[in-house]
């Protein structure tokens, strides 16, 4: 088995690495869409009504926006070899602050958004400081805020679920822009910014370098601590944005349930998209496709009247399948019978 493992590693890839990693998530997504085209009537129907687009595909983009936002930050964090478990709780905090500040219909939207995002950035910076300065293991460092953050959110809302009718605020999650739901625009802008920052400047290279080998990057003159600090701060910012979208969607701040388990969805989206949890190379388009895969699966199951509580089982199976298919050992086992026959 050792030898087979080695041949797998040494074999020349047919595609550039970035694209090769996209093959499986794209294949899974395509398979799901083909399945829907055949078996789910009306899945691909998109209507143009009153200047807006409506349909399941648009819903997928809209509902998937939160996980896509989280996945952007999570990709960079995972690329440094870390993980951010606190994003769900930060979403709750961000939503709580914003909704508390727009209770009055005449309140300033800019102030509320700025306050919510600043606190989210602060939360991210706190995680970053624990990981980079105190060198605490990322799972644990972010676990602190994951546990305490929801408590803080409840403290802000005093245990209630404040609701809001503020026009500007409800627009964030429910408005339309260019015939599409507004969250799609937020995601598009964030994806473009993140892609430009990581692929058109050296930042992306620094992140991959730190995730691949921190010591070597240090000797190469990269300030690993700063890089780590920045990615966690960025993840906090993304979580804050997702929190605004989530709170605006339901026009309320539900501290107990806002973003609950979304950190897990985001991690799954990133890993399914071809970014390894061990750090190193990251794949932003993969993370977005991973998010869409998870959301398409969820929407498909809803449309097929599957009990919503059973949906996690399907998610687990998809995650396991994609992970195993990317595992060199599993692929060697799959390929073994064929290779023996050929020899």
């Amino acid at each position, binding site marked *: 088995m050792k030898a087979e493992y080695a041949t797998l590693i040494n074999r020349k890839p047919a595609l550039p690495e970035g694209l090769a990693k996209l093959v499986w998530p794209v294949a899974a997504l395509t398979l799901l869409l083909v399945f829907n085209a055949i078996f789910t009537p009306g899945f691909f129907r998109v209507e143009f009504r009153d200047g807006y687009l409506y349909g399941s595909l648009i819903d997928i983009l809209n509902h998937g926006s939160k996980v896509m936002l989280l996945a952007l930050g999570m990709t960079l964090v995972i690329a440094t070899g870390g993980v951010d478990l606190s994003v769900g709780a930060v979403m709750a905090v961000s939503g709580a602050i914003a909704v508390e500040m727009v209770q009055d219909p005449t309140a300033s939207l800019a102030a509320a958004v700025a306050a919510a995002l600043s606190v989210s950035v602060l939360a991210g910076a706190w995680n970053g400081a624990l990981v980079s300065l105190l060198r605490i*293991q990322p799972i644990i460092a972010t676990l602190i805020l994951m*546990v305490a953050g929801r408590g803080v959110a409840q*403290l802000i809302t005093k245990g209630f679920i404040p609701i809001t009718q503020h026009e500007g605020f409800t627009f964030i999650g429910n408005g339309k822009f260019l015939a599409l739901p507004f969250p799609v625009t937020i995601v598009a802008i964030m994806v473009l910014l993140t892609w430009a920052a990581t692929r058109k400047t050296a930042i992306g290279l620094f992140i991959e370098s730190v995730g691949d080998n921190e010591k070597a990057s240090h000797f190469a003159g990269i300030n690993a601590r700063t890089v780590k600090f920045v990615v966690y701060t960025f993840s906090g910012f993304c979580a804050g944005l997702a929190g605004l979208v989530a709170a605006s969607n339901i026009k309320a701040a539900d501290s107990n349930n806002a973003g609950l388990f979304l950190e897990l969805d985001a991690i799954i989206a990133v890993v399914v998209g071809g970014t390894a949890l061990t750090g190193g190379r990251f794949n932003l388009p993969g993370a977005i496709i991973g998010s869409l895969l998870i959301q398409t699966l969820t929407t498909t199951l809803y449309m097929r009247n599957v*009990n919503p*509580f059973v949906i996690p*089982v399907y998610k687990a199976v998809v995650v396991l399948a994609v992970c195993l298919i990317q595992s060199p050992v599993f692929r060697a086992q799959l390929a073994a019978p064929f290779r023996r026959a050929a020899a």
Partner: protein
Amino acid sequence: MRFPIATKYIPLLGTALVLVLVYVAGAMAYPGFASLYTFKLLLENNSFVGVAAIGMTFVILSGGIDLSVGSVVAFTSIFIAKLIFLGFHPLAAIAMSLVLGAAFGAFQGALIHFYRQPAFLITLAGMFFARGMGYVVHDQALGIKHEFYSESITNWSIPIGPGVQLGLTAIIFIACLLVGLFIAHFTRFGRAVYAIGDDEQSATLMGIPIGRTKIAVYALSGFLSALAGVVSTFYQSSGWANNAIGFELDAIAATVIGGTLLTGGVGFLAGTGMGVLILGLIQDIINFQGTLSSWWTKIVVGLLLLLFIGLQTLVTALSRRRIRHVPAVPKPDKPAPAAA
């Protein structure tokens, strides 16, 4: 700087100190807090967190993590309720659920070991799977009506003081803790767990069976999670797939507060036992206080986590300083993969 005790015991000592402080603070502030009866309730009410935390400690000691704990607890509770509803004897239902829990854990362990997948990811998938399967078994809360539950279980108790009986759930917790302590410190398996968590490569070179140990660790955690689910049915006389959400976090928090390093290889089960009691005491104090809202529990637990993680970071730094005279052995470069 030299401590009169080995550095590895400092976090354990810290845990014991916090436990005593929290208990004394509660006892001084509220009449009735220090009573034997309150203590009995503390043990009984936290027994199912305790049982699961013991499994979690083994997993974390081996350098892994198990996020599926809460879901397995929920699945077990509804599985038992359903089997009893279908006419099985409770003991048969309990036996089946324990076997199933162990098998589920072993399966996760096998995936982690054989396919070199991160424990975090596999047990995350396991968490989703078990939670969803609970709803497949039965999608609503289901009460357990059987004389075994209403009669027999309440009779199994040990008198620990005048008029105070320690119930079955607490007995299970204490028994698990004792057996766990024995396994961790007096068996070959226990030593293998510590060795693997400390340095898997060295453990391999020493001839320690990595695969067998890892799979056994996850099987143990699955078994204890299922047992925690059984205990939760004793406690609630019902099962529900929506039970114990976020429960794995409590188990991890108890383990960390108990002084176990999440990097693996360092820690004590006794600390986990104390960690469970600290979490329970904080909840009790907030209940006794009456005006503090429940979300303060989360904030205080977060602060305690921070305190203990800080303490561990300090201890790790101290022990590193002590062995600084030993020349650092550079890790050998990865051998080039042999050409096939």
